[in-house]
């Protein structure tokens, strides 16, 4: 068995690798040098690269984004991190008006990487669980990546840091402890390339981030029912790898698009729109979308019981697309793990 490490360790490794290779890279964010080190992802960086390149910051999300932009205009490559996406909302002027547009207006590069972590469950609630990748994707000039596997986390983070454009790097908190085989050294996954992670003929599922893990559980279940699935993990949601999606839909004629954000105007909506426009003749049934309801995310244990989509919901949506009567009996065995945590490793607090 080749070397297995966690997603968070893969992020940590990518940061070490990048900063070792390029002295112009700096890394900052609230808590990067505290004992917890952003869930472990920035542990050891300051000891290795010094306080000038790795530092904690004031709670000033907007200015610190502008500061990243300014530094990047003079040959520094900043990597900024926020422990929850929701705090980054304070920085929309700098992200949307400056970072996204600087190259278009002035022709000057803005090589910045912004890591955002999306919470789920454990009462993270309305303002600690939002995934706003659809917003960011709406802004011309940004790139938005959201890896699922540990290897893709490392490979995409190294590509994001090397990219000459502003890249939003979205990590789902529930992925942090998942293990995967990760190559050592400078390993890169190109931005803008999706990955076909399961091949099948009956339906195409287009997924992202943590929902890909649930989709894999769904696929195992569906296999026993003789339903085979093309599962595409987007990895980058701006720009989207349309060729991979179209190729799959042309083969299966059926589409289910998943999204970890709210349904309306989601990336999943865009996937369905573009497939309907460009592959209309190939579609054998109406595509379906499975995303969060258009409500803020509640906090309480019982309120979240049905709120987030899981493998069971994916299976039901697959049945809908395939026109299979659903008797509502789908149950995936998850042992004793409650619905609001990703596994026994997670004991909060956030």
């Amino acid at each position, binding site marked *: 068995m080749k070397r297995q490490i966690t997603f968070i360790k893969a992020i940590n490794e990518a940061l070490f690798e990048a900063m070792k290779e390029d002295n112009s890279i*700096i890394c900052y964010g609230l808590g990067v040098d505290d004992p917890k080190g952003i869930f472990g992802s920035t542990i050891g960086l300051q000891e290795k690269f010094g306080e*000038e*390149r790795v530092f904690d*910051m*004031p709670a*000033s999300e*907007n*200015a*610190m*984004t*502008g*500061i*990243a*932009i*300014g*530094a*990047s*205009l*003079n*040959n*520094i490559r900043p990597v900024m991190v926020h422990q929850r996406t929701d705090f980054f909302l304070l920085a929309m*002027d*700098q992200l949307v*008006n*400056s970072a996204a547009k*600087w*190259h*278009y*207006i*002035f*022709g*000057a*590069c*803005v*090589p910045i990487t912004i890591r955002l972590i999306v919470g789920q469950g454990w009462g993270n609630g309305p303002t600690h669980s939002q995934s706003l990748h659809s917003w960011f994707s709406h802004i*011309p*000039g940004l*790139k938005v990546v959201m890896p699922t596997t540990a290897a893709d986390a490392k490979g995409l983070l190294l590509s994001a840091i090397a990219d*000459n*454009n502003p890249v939003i790097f979205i990590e789902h908190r529930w992925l942090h402890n998942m293990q995967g085989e990760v190559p050592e050294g400078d390993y890169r996954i190109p931005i803008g390339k999706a990955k076909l992670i399961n091949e099948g003929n009956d339906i195409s599922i287009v997924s992202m981030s943590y929902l890909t893990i649930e989709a894999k559980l769904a696929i195992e279940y569906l296999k026993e029912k003789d339903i085979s699935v093309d599962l595409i993990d987007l990895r980058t949601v701006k720009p989207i790898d349309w060729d991979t999606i179209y190729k799959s839909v042309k083969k299966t004629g059926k589409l289910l698009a998943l999204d970890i954000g709210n349904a309306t105007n989601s990336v999943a909506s865009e996937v369905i729109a573009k497939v309907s426009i460009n592959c209309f003749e190939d579609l054998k049934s109406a595509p379906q979308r499975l995303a969060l309801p258009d409500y803020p995310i509640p906090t309480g244990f019982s309120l979240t019981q049905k709120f987030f989509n899981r493998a069971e919901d994916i299976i039901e949506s697959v049945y809908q697309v395939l026109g299979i009567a659903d008797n509502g009996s789908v149950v995936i065995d998850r042992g004793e793990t409650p619905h609001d945590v990703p596994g026994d490793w997670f004991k909060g607090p956030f």
Partner: protein
Amino acid sequence: MIDWEIAIKLYKNMQLIRHIEETIARKYTEWKMRCPTHLSIGQEGIASGVSIALSKADLVMSTHRSHAHYIAKGGDPNTLIAEIYGKSTGCSSGIGGSMHLIDKSVGFMGSTSIVGNTIPIAVGLGLSLKLQKSKHISCVYFGDGSIEEGVFYESVNFAAIKKLPVLFICENNFYSVYSSLKVRQPEGRKIYKMVEGIGIKSAFGDGNNAIEVNNLTKNAITSIREGNGPYFLEFSTYRWLEHCGPNYDNDLGYRSFNEYSDWKEKDPIVMLEKQLKEYDEFSNEKISTIRNHSQKIADEAFEFAESSPFPKPEDAYKNLYSE
């Protein structure tokens, strides 16, 4: 004691700004300059006083009202006017217009339209200069309205923590569009005093006295270059024309005619002319030569802009990303 060589530089610099701005105002109603345009007439003293104290390699950022800052730093007048005309030879290739100017060859790193937007970006430039152990500084202009934005406090705070080589220049012209400072900030509170409270050095000066601006800026730059961290300068001044556009707007009644005429008496160019009267080598003839030369540069810039090609419609779909 006035350094006459510097005084002449300031005078030439202000006259050039004034002539270019007046030519824009005169020609604006030809409707060939089709973008919101905020003129700096009356406020030249600050741009010139600051820029003459900076070196070419020092970096500057600015706001929606940035023509004076751009010209004063040595920005190319041709590409400025071409930009306002939306031509492909414009400093932002016609993408940005009057509110998005850049001339990196003289350290003018960009101006943008959102209030307070370039303040943190200039602090980021300051961070880069510190990391690179450069002796140069970053300088950012903004108005009294920017002081009301949260990002101003965030930016000054960070610059103070890291002792960054950043010079903050606040042009207090007492109005944010039509809104008087009186309704926006507490009476009697001095901006520069408040900023001192954040923990950086700060001073106030008459923005219509270019020599005073220049002297205060030189002091500030010396302090910054000695490694003492950022410096904040507030200068009072007054915009003569409407917030946006080529006209006078005293008829609107949001400010009194008396207030306007008091400030017009303090025209920074006339004030410097009075000071220069004591200088033997300055004469009415010299004034005409400088004025004629300034108008010639302005006229050439308009000829350059008029004769330049427009970008093609399909050029709107370029340069979204850097390769």
